[in-house]
């Protein structure tokens, strides 16, 4: 399985390289898109990474969510050396501008890859996504990420159109404490109640779902979430430590 992933990753990277070559020397423009070419190298042209690799697409995700993730990488609550290094010396104002830019893009999602895993596994995944597991205190994904799982603006991301490897890695990282958010870290609590098999099932099902047309996240309703989230509380102006 590992080797398969590596091959898939290599193919995805080859795709990035090939598309880079085909796009040689577009005219220089003083735009935010031009300034963030550092991001699109991995996240795909305009941030639209396809579900066949590791990197998540960033185009069209809720701005508050993207901003929080940029800060989480900068402040090393999330760990990926290249992201940590790129963002280390950027301030909140610029990170917000970058988040707003990618969030504002409304690009079509490609069709999902052919489903992986067994039908039983995907059924188990769907059950967790739609109903959770009240006995273990696991809320349904739908409860926070929207009935269509396209997220709720501005802080909660959609769960569709993401690579299965990426979903597995994020849920696993939350479970192990490797990925963190501003406290209270709701997703860490949820992931720690899931088994590795649960995570595999949820990822397999989510990655096989098509993204509905016009998948922009609707605004969050004013009803409280089933579980408190620091990243969402940041809406109320709870800022992290100052950059400098």
């Amino acid at each position, binding site marked *: 399985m590992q080797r398969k992933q590596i091959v898939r990753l290599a193919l995805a990277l080859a795709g990035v*390289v090939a598309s880079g070559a085909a796009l040689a020397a577009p005219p220089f423009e003083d735009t935010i898109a031009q*300034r963030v*070419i550092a991001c699109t190298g991995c996240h795909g042209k305009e941030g639209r990474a396809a579900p066949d690799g590791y990197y998540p697409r960033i185009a069209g995700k809720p701005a508050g969510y993207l901003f929080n993730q940029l800060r989480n990488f*900068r402040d090393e609550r999330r760990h990926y050396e290249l992201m*940590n290094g*790129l963002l280390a010396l950027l301030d909140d104002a610029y990170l917000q*501008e970058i988040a707003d830019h990618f969030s504002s893009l409304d690009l079509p999602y490609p069709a999902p890859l052919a489903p992986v895993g067994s039908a039983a596994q995907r059924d188990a995944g769907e059950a967790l996504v739609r109903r959770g597991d009240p006995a273990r205190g696991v809320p349904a994904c739908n409860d926070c990420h929207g009935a269509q799982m396209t997220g709720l603006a501005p802080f909660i991301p959609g769960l569709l159109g993401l690579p299965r490897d990426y979903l597995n890695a994020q849920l696993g990282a939350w479970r192990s404490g490797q990925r963190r958010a501003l406290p209270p870290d709701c997703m860490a609590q949820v992931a720690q109640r899931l088994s590795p098999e649960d995570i595999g099932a949820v990822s397999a099902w989510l990655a096989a779902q098509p993204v509905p047309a016009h998948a922009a996240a609707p605004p969050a309703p004013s009803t409280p979430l089933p579980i408190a989230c620091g990243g969402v509380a940041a809406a109320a102006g709870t800022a992290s430590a100052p950059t400098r």
Partner: protein
Amino acid sequence: MKLGKSSIALAVVAALVLLAAIAVVGLNRDDELPRAPEIAARASNAELVARGEYLVRAGSCYGCHTEPGGAAYAGGRAIETPFGIVNAPNLTADATGLAAWSSDDFWRALHNGRSRDGRLLYPAFPYPNYTRLVRADADAMFAYLKSLAPVAKQNRPHALRFPFDQSAALAVWRALFFRPAQFETDNARSPQWNRGAYLVETLGHCNACHSRRNVFGATAGPLDLAGGLIPIQNWYAPSLRDNAEAGVGDWPEREVVALLRSGVSARGSVQGPMAEVVARSTQFLSEDDLAAMATYLGSLPDRPDATRRATGDSDAAFVPSEAGAKLYTTHCAACHGDRGEGVAGAYPALAGNRAVAITPPANLVHMVLRGGFAPATPGHPRPYGMPPFATVLSDEQVGQVLSYLRASWGHRAPPVSTLEVSRYRGAR
């Protein structure tokens, strides 16, 4: 009574060891003053605190004493050295920080490299530079740190390998490489030059990176600014005494000021560890102080290091490879231009860029692998970024494209081998 030759030899050795031990202990106590309890009134002066904040920034304390995303100056950052890990302590006014410290204690730490409890401090804390601070500046810095909101955060013990974890070893190191000292004003120079020297050599501790370290991790002193590879990080801090590296003898003063203030200038931009220095320290300095640093740096004589240039003279060895040229066209030319001309204000030109030709090529390798943004500063708030190529190019390809740069557009620098790239790729 008759003593054998071996007994005499043993006695002589014992006497020498004793004398050396006395010397080590004596040298480690050199220039220490008796410490008085704190006078409470001293730390409550707003002006003093403000000056202290400025000096703490000029001293680049933040970079080591603050964890990414953590409370400012609450410590916790692990500094990796060739001898193990040194954990930067909490400097806030909490009981786990400096709450119990007096300004005399603080002065002894900066000037003598000894902690409040009498322990010797490891020179990852740059007291070989801070020892030359004037007392009034140290007191202002202390007043500022005492004014910070207390953050409860226990210091982690260092994790140094034997024998470097032994205080006796540290005492010997200090006897060999450290003396408390004072900043000496050079009366033949202007006050501005002297201010610049004080900022560069003492407070800014520029030589902590911009000089070579011997096998014991010691520099040749604060005046040695001739460049060096930063241990563990393996970025090369170029020579400030060589106009082909980072010397500014032929730069207009305003460009030096712009670089230190905003991270960019018409002559170049900062990346890597120096970007952190600008972001955490020099961007906050006054125009006068930056100009003073420029004056001092500009006055350093241009002394290229012949050993570093030695391999760069013969043209024959440096024919750019076809593969390198192709990689350049595919991955680099869109931003840096077909002829390495770059885009003014956005993407650095590679033709005529001295950073391209510096040996060792450590920084080039890091830039290609990791990409980067110049720091966001008020003078340059929305920097352009370069993507990382660590996941795209193999070590061999990185070597090929860099060797191509280093043999193009008038550059005549030695090629970069696959082995060199993989060595730098492994660095943190």
